[in-house]
C-alpha cells in the first residue's frame, strides 16, 4: 500500500531560492548566439521581395536565415500528410505572426536592432479572419466529422417544444509564464543537442531531424522543467527549436531563441474559438428527445492538432447527458490567423458548452431549475448509458458527486435566497449554477497511449530515474518519484529525477491529455518492480532463503519483520553477483479502441468526473461581475498526492474561469492581433479569485480500472468545472426579466457581453409581457 502523503513538489526548495533552472537560465554555454525571429505583420498576401543586406551588415550579426537556409524540409507540421506549416514563409503569407526571417547575433539586442533594418515587400490579398467569414467562404481545412445516433430531425420535430440558437466561444492565450524558448548546441559529427521548453521532446526531435535533413539519432532534446505549458508547448516549441538548430548548424555555435512575450502571443497558436449552432426538441419532462449540435471552429492557417482537438470536442458534445437522438457535427475552418492548437481540455470545454446551453434553454422554457433538467438528462445505467460514439459510461460516481455537492453546497436553499435577494436589489443581481463534468481519459490517437521509463541504481544505492513525461508544474515528477519510492522503499532524497531526454527514452508521447501520470507512472512502476524483483532474487541466492520470505521495506531487506541488510548493501551485493542494476519499463493503455472514420469505439480508458456550484453577482450598470463562492467536488480516484490534485483543480478552475469570463482575443479586420501583451490581454489575477473556494476530493472512490494505484488523471477535467460560472452569470442576468428569457450569453462573458445580454433579456422580457 502506498505510503502516507507528505511529499511536496520535488523542486520547490530550488524554486523558492531561484536555483531551479529553466532553459533561459542555463548560462554556462560558451559563444552563445541569440536569435530574433521577424514575423509577418500581414495576415494574407505574397512575399514579393526580401532585402536583408542592411540586416547582415548590422553590428554583431552572425547569420540571417530565410526559407532558403533550411537544409532539410521547411515544414513544422509534423503530420504524415504534410500540414503545410513552413518554418519560414517561402512566398505565400497565410497568417500574421508567420516567420519571415531570423537574425542571429552576438546579443539579443543586436539581433533585434538588425531585424528592423529589413526591407520586406508584400502584396496583400483578402484574408479570412473570423469564423463567420470562414463559414461564408466555406474554407474547410479538414473534412467535417459527424456522429449520428437515432433520428434527431424527426425526434426534434415530434417534440412538444423546440429551441434553437447559436453560441460563440472565444479562444484563449496560454500565457505560460515562461515563454517559448530553445537553445541548440552543436555537437561532433553533425549531432545537435537542444534544450527546449516543450511538452513534447520527441516531436521537437523528429521535426528538427526533418528541418536539418538528418536522422533522428543525430538530435537529442532535453527538458528538465518548463514554466507552464497548458497545451501551448505541445507542438508550438518547434519554431524556436527549429530556428535555433538551423542557426547552430550553420554557425557551429550554440544559439538561443527566446520569443518576446508579445511575439509569443502573436506567433503561437491558442485555444480554438467556436461557433456552436444548436437545435433541440423536448417534452414537458425536460428530457432531450432530439438534439443537433453544429460545431464550427477556427483552426487558423495550418492543421496543427486541429483534427484531434475537434474530435475531442465532438466526443464531449454529450458532456454528462444521454442523447438518444443526436446529430453532432464538427466543421474545421481554415482562417488567416495563428494556427490554433492544444489547450487544456483540448476541445472538450467547447464541446460541453453546447449541450449545457441546450439544458439551460430547456430550463427557461419549462421554468424549471436547470439542475433538475441536468439530473433528468444525466446518463443512467442500464438504459441510458451509451455515449453517442458507443462507449459505455457508468454514471454512478457522477450521480453521487452531484448528489453530495447539491447537499453540502446547499444549492437548493441558496438558489431560493438568491431569488429573494434579487427581488430587492435593482442593480446587483446574483446567480447560481451547478454544472457537471465527465471527461474521457486517454489520447484518442490510440498509438500515443504508451510510455517508457529507465531506472538506474548505482553501487551506493542511489537511483536515477528517467521517464517520458515533462514536468510543467502539474507535479508529475513528484508523483512518479513517490511511486518508485514506494516500490523500492527508499527515501525520496535517494532518487534523482533526471531531465526528460530523448537520449534516455525514445519515441515519447506528448505530456498531454491529462495522462502523463497514468502512462509514465505505470512505466516507472514497471521498471522499479523489475529491479525490486531482481534484488529479492539476489538476496534469496545469497541468503539461501525462498524469495517469498524476503521483502523490502523502509530501505531494508527483511525476512518477516527482521531487517537483514540495507538497500545499499543489497544493491552492492547484486553488483558483485553481476546482476544488472538498470531496467526499462514500458506501458501501453489496455482496452481502448477508436475508429476515427466511423467515429465509434471506446477511446477512453476511463472517465474523470466532477461538479461545481458557482455563485456570482453582476452589476447591471457596468456589466462587471464577481464570483462570490465556488464549491467543487471532484474525483481523482485514490489520490497519489492530495495537495497536488487540489492544486490542479483550483488552478484549472481559475484558468477555465479566465477563458469564460475575461480573457478576450481581439483581431482587427486585417487579421492583426490587438491583444498581444498582458497589458491588453487579461488573465485572472488574485483579485478575480472567488472569495470562497471549497474544494473536496471524492472520498472512497478508487478508479474502477487498473490505473496507477487506482488514481485518476486530474490535469484537464477541472478546467471545465468553471462552466458553472458562465451559467451562474446567465442565471443572474435572466433575473432582469423574471427568469423567463435565456440570456444566450457568449464567451468570454466580459462586461460588454454581459451588458449586451442584459439588454437583450430586458428587451425580450418587455416584448413578452
Amino acid at each position: 500500500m502506498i505510503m502516507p502523503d507528505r511529499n511536496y513538489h520535488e523542486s520547490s526548495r530550488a524554486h523558492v531560492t531561484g536555483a531551479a533552472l529553466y532553459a533561459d537560465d542555463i548560462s554556462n554555454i560558451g559563444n552563445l548566439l541569440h536569435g530574433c525571429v521577424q514575423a509577418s505583420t500581414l495576415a494574407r498576401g505574397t512575399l514579393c521581395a526580401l532585402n536583408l543586406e542592411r540586416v547582415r551588415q548590422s553590428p554583431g550579426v552572425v547569420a540571417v536565415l530565410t526559407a532558403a537556409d533550411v537544409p532539410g524540409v521547411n515544414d513544422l507540421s509534423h503530420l504524415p500528410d504534410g500540414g503545410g506549416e513552413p518554418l519560414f514563409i517561402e512566398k505565400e503569407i497565410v497568417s500574421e505572426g508567420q516567420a519571415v526571417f531570423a537574425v542571429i547575433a552576438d546579443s539579443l539586442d543586436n539581433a533585434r536592432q538588425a531585424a528592423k533594418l529589413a526591407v520586406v515587400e508584400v502584396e496583400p490579398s483578402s484574408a479570412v479572419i473570423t469564423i463567420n467569414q470562414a463559414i461564408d467562404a466555406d474554407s474547410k481545412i479538414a473534412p467535417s466529422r459527424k456522429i449520428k445516433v437515432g433520428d434527431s430531425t424527426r425526434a426534434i420535430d415530434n417534440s412538444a417544444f423546440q429551441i434553437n440558437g447559436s453560441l460563440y466561444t472565444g479562444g484563449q492565450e496560454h500565457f505560460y509564464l515562461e515563454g517559448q524558448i530553445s537553445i541548440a548546441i552543436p555537437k561532433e559529427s553533425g549531432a545537435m543537442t537542444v534544450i527546449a521548453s516543450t511538452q513534447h521532446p520527441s516531436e521537437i526531435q523528429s521535426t528538427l531531424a526533418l528541418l536539418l535533413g538528418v536522422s533522428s539519432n543525430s538530435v537529442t532534446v532535453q527538458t528538465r522543467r518548463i514554466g507552464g505549458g497548458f497545451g501551448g508547448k505541445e507542438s508550438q516549441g518547434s519554431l524556436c527549436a527549429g530556428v535555433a538548430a538551423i542557426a547552430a548548424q550553420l554557425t557551429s555555435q550554440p544559439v538561443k531563441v527566446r520569443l518576446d512575450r508579445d511575439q509569443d502571443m502573436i506567433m503561437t497558436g491558442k485555444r480554438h474559438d467556436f461557433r456552436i449552432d444548436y437545435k433541440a426538441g423536448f417534452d414537458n419532462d425536460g428530457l432531450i428527445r432530439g438534439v443537433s449540435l453544429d460545431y464550427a471552429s477556427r483552426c487558423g492557417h495550418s492543421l496543427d492538432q486541429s483534427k484531434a482537438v475537434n474530435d475531442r470536442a465532438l466526443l464531449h458534445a454529450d458532456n454528462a447527458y444521454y442523447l438518444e437522438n443526436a446529430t453532432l457535427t464538427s466543421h474545421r475552418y481554415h482562417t488567416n490567423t495563428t494556427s490554433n492548437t492544444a489547450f487544456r481540455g483540448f476541445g472538450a470545454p467547447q464541446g460541453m458548452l453546447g449541450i449545457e446551453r441546450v439544458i439551460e434553454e430547456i430550463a427557461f422554457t419549462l421554468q424549471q431549475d436547470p439542475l433538475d433538467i441536468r439530473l433528468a438528462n444525466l446518463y443512467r445505467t442500464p438504459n441510458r448509458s451509451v455515449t453517442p460514439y458507443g462507449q459505455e459510461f457508468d454514471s454512478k460516481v457522477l450521480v453521487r458527486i452531484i448528489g453530495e455537492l447539491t447537499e453540502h453546497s446547499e444549492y437548493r436553499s441558496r438558489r431560493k435566497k438568491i431569488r429573494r435577494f434579487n427581488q430587492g436589489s435593482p442593480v446587483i443581481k446574483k446567480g447560481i449554477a451547478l454544472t457537471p463534468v465527465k471527461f474521457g481519459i486517454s489520447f484518442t490517437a490510440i498509438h500515443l497511449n504508451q510510455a517508457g521509463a529507465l531506472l538506474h541504481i548505482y553501487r551506493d544505492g542511489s537511483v536515477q530515474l528517467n521517464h517520458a513525461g515533462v514536468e510543467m508544474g502539474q507535479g508529475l515528477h513528484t508523483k512518479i518519484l513517490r511511486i518508485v519510492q514506494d516500490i523500492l522503499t527508499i527515501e525520496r532524497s535517494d532518487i534523482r529525477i533526471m531531465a526528460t531526454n530523448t537520449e534516455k527514452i525514445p519515441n515519447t508521447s506528448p505530456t498531454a491529455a491529462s495522462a502523463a501520470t497514468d502512462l509514465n507512472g505505470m512505466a516507472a512502476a514497471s521498471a522499479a518492480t523489475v529491479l525490486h524483483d531482481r534484488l529479492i532474487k539476489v538476496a534469496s541466492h545469497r541468503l539461501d532463503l525462498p524469495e517469498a520470505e524476503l521483502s523490502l521495506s523502509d530501505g531494508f531487506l527483511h525476512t518477516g519483520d527482521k531487517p537483514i541488510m540495507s538497500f545499499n548493501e543489497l544493491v552492492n551485493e547484486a553488483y558483485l553477483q553481476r546482476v544488472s542494476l538498470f531496467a526499462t519499463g514500458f506501458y501501453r493503455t489496455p482496452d481502448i479502441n477508436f475508429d476515427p472514420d466511423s467515429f465509434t469505439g471506446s477511446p477512453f480508458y476511463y472517465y474523470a468526473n466532477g461538479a461545481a456550484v458557482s455563485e456570482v453577482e453582476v452589476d447591471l450598470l457596468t456589466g462587471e461581475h464577481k464570483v462570490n463562492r465556488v464549491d467543487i467536488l471532484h474525483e481523482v480516484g485514490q489520490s497519489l498526492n492530495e495537495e497536488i490534485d487540489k492544486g490542479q483543480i483550483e488552478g484549472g478552475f481559475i484558468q477555465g474561469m479566465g477563458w469564460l469570463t475575461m480573457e478576450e482575443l481581439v483581431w482587427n479586420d486585417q487579421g492583426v492581433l490587438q491583444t498581444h501583451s498582458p497589458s491588453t490581454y487579461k488573465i485572472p489575477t488574485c483579485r478575480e479569485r472567488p472569495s470562497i473556494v471549497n474544494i473536496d476530493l471524492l472520498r472512497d472512490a478508487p478508479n474502477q480500472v487498473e490505473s496507477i494505484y487506482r488514481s485518476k488523471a486530474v490535469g484537464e477535467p477541472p478546467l471545465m468545472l468553471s462552466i458553472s460560472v458562465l451559467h451562474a452569470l446567465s442565471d443572474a442576468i435572466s433575473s432582469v426579466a423574471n427568469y423567463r428569457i435565456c440570456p444566450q450569453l457568449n464567451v468570454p462573458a466580459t462586461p460588454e457581453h454581459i451588458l449586451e445580454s442584459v439588454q437583450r433579456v430586458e428587451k425580450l422580457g418587455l416584448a413578452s409581457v
Partner: protein
Amino acid sequence: MSLTHEIKFTLNGSPVSLTIPLTMSVLTMLRDLLNLTGTKYGCGEGECGACTILIDGVSVNACLKFAVDCDGRTLTTVEGLVADSRNDPLRTAFAEKGGVQCGFCTPGMVMQARHILDNYPRANESQIKRGIEGNLCRCTGYKKIIETIASVGELDNKG
C-alpha cells in the same frame, strides 16, 4: 554605439561596481551580467511580476527599471534573501504548502511576499491580495499562494 555608465550598488549584501549601457534594464543586468537567473523574464513590460526584486527594500519590476538607477542603492534578489528567522519560514511555507506549481512566478512571488510582510507583518487576506495583484500565476489559482503568505504572517503573530 551605446553610451555606458559606471554604477556602484549593494547587491545581496555585497558591493558591486559595473559599467553598463544606459539602456540596460535591471533585469538584463541581473540575468546576463551578474548571472543571477532566479529573477525571471516573464513579459518585459511590468505586467507579470516574475522579475520582482527589492530595491532599498521596496518591491520593483526589474524589467521596468534602468540599471543606471541602481547607483548607490541596495538590491535584493531571490538568491540574496538571507537565511534567517524572517525568510526561512517564508521559503519553507512556499516550498511545502503547494504555492509552487511550475515555479516560474515563484521567485517574484517570494520577493513580493517579503515586501508585503515587511510592511504588514500580520498581513490579512485583503492586504495580501492587494500586494500580489501585480504578480501573475497561471498555475495555482492563487489560493495556496495567499494561504502561504498568510500562514507566515500568522507565524509572525505567534513569534
